[in-house]
């Protein structure tokens, strides 16, 4: 009897201890049990997963290294643009999906380094404004260099990964387009790999150097850490991860779309997600993005569609939609979270400790 009780309490504790495995399992299995997840909502949840990936890149810069970056969406867009240039049928290159992703991530990382090197002298707000300016410049270049980028119409359609490959008579490309589960799993795998990568980086010598440079730049210099190199590496890695997320995003949508989607608004939204999640914390970043973007692109359309049905049965026209109050709802959510959890929802232990210290 006693043993049984113990095992029961173990069972109750199990999810608390291994919650990340559980969440991952749920995400893997959910599409098979929830048809809606595989439907259009799957597409939207895929976007949330992709933005999670990009936010992890931003977290390397803002959270670990302490450099305020307001132009992450431009790297997201650049990654997508290079993928599109390399794969769309209108261009002569048309290399396969995987090599294209590889090339575009490398080029995006190189651009990140290029932006990083002249601006490393800048601190705090100045760096933030320069990255903001860079983001806007990239957005306008996207719009104006129409021969390369397609302007407002974007470049597309991008052939889905595996197009032209036939497995027992089924065109994989078609499957990727018609069944959103393929992209769902692809982005889940990428997210998983990026989480592992960032986790390893954080524990590595480089990761410790990032944190040292953030907290004690002078002390770091005396023990031989070159702040310039360390900051530059953070810039590069953030750009590369954001570029990878951008590749996935445009591939799942099928076109680069309107370049305005890579502007200041998107950058700021990702930054907010990272901060409300908790700076420097990987689960925090994931939760922050899930809440903020999940609310904006999954929950609100769902609630609206549900309310439409209710109202549609009662009246002819739907009078009220949550959609028209989206901005205010997101804004209030940001204010409230910061008011009651100024260190973020799931702060990293180090960050929370720092904050405690500064309070005393």
């Amino acid at each position, binding site marked *: 009897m006693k043993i049984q009780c113990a095992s029961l309490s173990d069972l109750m504790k199990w999810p*608390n201890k291994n919650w990340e495995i559980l969440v991952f399992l749920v995400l893997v299995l959910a599409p098979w049990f929830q048809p809606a997840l595989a439907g259009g909502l799957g597409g939207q949840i895929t976007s949330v997963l992709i933005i999670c990936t990009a936010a992890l890149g931003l977290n390397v810069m803002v959270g670990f290294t302490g450099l305020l970056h307001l132009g992450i969406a431009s790297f997201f867009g650049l990654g997508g643009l290079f993928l599109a240039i390399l794969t769309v049928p209108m261009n002569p290159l048309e290399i396969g999906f995987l090599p294209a992703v590889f090339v575009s991530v490398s080029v995006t990382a190189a651009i990140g380094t290029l932006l990083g090197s002249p601006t490393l002298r800048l601190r705090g707000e100045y760096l933030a404004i320069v990255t903001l300016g860079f983001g806007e410049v990239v957005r306008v270049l996207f719009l104006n260099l129409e021969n390369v980028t397609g302007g407002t*119409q974007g470049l597309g*359609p991008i052939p889905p990964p595996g197009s032209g490959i036939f497995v027992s008579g089924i065109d994989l490309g078609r499957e990727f*387009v*018609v069944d959103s589960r393929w992209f769902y799993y692809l982005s889940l795998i990428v997210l998983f790999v990026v989480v592992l990568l960032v986790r390893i980086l954080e524990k590595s010598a480089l990761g410790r150097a990032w944190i040292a440079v953030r907290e004690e730049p002078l002390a770091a210099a005396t023990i031989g850490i070159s702040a310039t190199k360390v900051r530059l590496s953070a810039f590069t890695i953030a750009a590369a991860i954001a570029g990878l997320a951008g590749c996935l995003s445009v591939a799942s949508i099928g076109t680069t779309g309107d370049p305005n989607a890579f502007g200041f608004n998107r950058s700021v939204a990702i930054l907010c997600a990272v901060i409300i999640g908790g700076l420097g914390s990987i689960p925090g970043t994931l939760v922050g993005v899930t809440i903020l973007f999940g609310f904006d*692109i999954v929950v609100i*359309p769902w609630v*609206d569609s549900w309310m439409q049905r209710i109202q549609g049965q009662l009246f002819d*026209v739907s009078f009220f*939609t949550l959609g028209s109050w989206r901005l205010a709802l997101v804004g209030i959510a940001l204010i409230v979270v910061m008011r009651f959890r100024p260190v973020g929802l799931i702060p990293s232990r180090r960050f929370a400790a720092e904050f405690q210290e500064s309070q005393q």
Partner: protein
Amino acid sequence: MRSIWFCQPNPSAFRLLWNIVVCLTIGLNSFGCQKIESNRVCLVSSLPRTGVSKQLSDEVVRGIRLAIDEVKAKAGRFTLEYRDLDNSAAASGRWTSEGEAANARMAVEDSDVMAYIGTLNSGAARVSMPILNYADLLMVSPANTAVGLTKPGLGLPGEPNVYRPSGRLNYIRVVPADDLQGPLAADWAFERGVRRVFVIDDAGVYGRGVASLFADRCREQGMTVLDHVSIDPQAAEFKSFVGSVMSADPDLVYFGGSARTKGGQLARDLVSAESEAILLVSDGCRTEAFLEAAGAASLEGRCFATSAGLSPQQADCEEKLLFLRYRQKYGTCPSNAAIHGYEAARLVIRAITDVGQKDRRAIVESAFASQVDDGVLGQWGIDANGDTTLQEVSVSVVRDGKFVHEEVMSTAGIGKKDGSR
């Protein structure tokens, strides 16, 4: 057992995330028309329902609802269910590729959905067209006018076949494409004795397209195209730019774009710079919003707009049943957007009724074969590319703070019909 990829398992954090996941999975159960009912058919529209385009998409949705009400939500043995999807996002206030792709996927994977009405913006159509094409789902656009979407050889290289990966057609539009409106606008200008034109566009798919076609036709007619410039549709004002327009001294300034891409602002800046040139705008500007932004008084008699099809006033506003019903329900006369939404929905409903079963391919074919005799904007059908056969463009002028019908232009010779009622 401590896992490797997250630091510090945090119980409260876990509960938060876990609850979110559980809520989502439970909540999603009730999403969409999943329960397979043999006699229910879903009709979805994907339009930008927040931000700058809300006004226009509201009108389209009203048109669609009116068409559904007209048949009492029945198409043959089916009950019609209409869902109004949003393809815009809060942060940007305009359509997003993610939203449009997600809407298209949802429509494809829901086996009750038999038609997809959308999109408002040609750029958004480029996102959803390949997805819907794979699934053979009928897509009817009430507003896309970019030529490349359907017409071979006129758009970018590879268009429109890149949007038809399955090799079959599924896309129809009920508005004439820009290759009608742009050139006819140029002909109209030529007839009025205009010789020097300055062409401006909003850098969008639609604005750029119609303005280029206008400029090309102007050159063919022997007019001087002083310049063709794209503006930044997010700029606050165009004072500096209008200075360079003025110094070129044009007879006519053409703007390809819409009220939401700063058409009104541009018109206002031109007027306040005391430009003598007449202003000709494309149909995206033929809205209340344009007049409101531009200040209608200053445009009196010198601002003209083209619009595809017969204009509402010309089509005897008071006599048509649609107008009565629309006015009864919403209190205003329907705009062109509402009419096109109505026509698109009616086309879809008729195709579903004719086929009588849930066969997406058959519905597409039936829609392609349809011929509309009692259309609000005249008689029309669908040609092999999925375009409407409507060949008329009407020109309106601003009078007493409203767009008033002036004359009809047609490709069948530059036939002038009597415009006065």
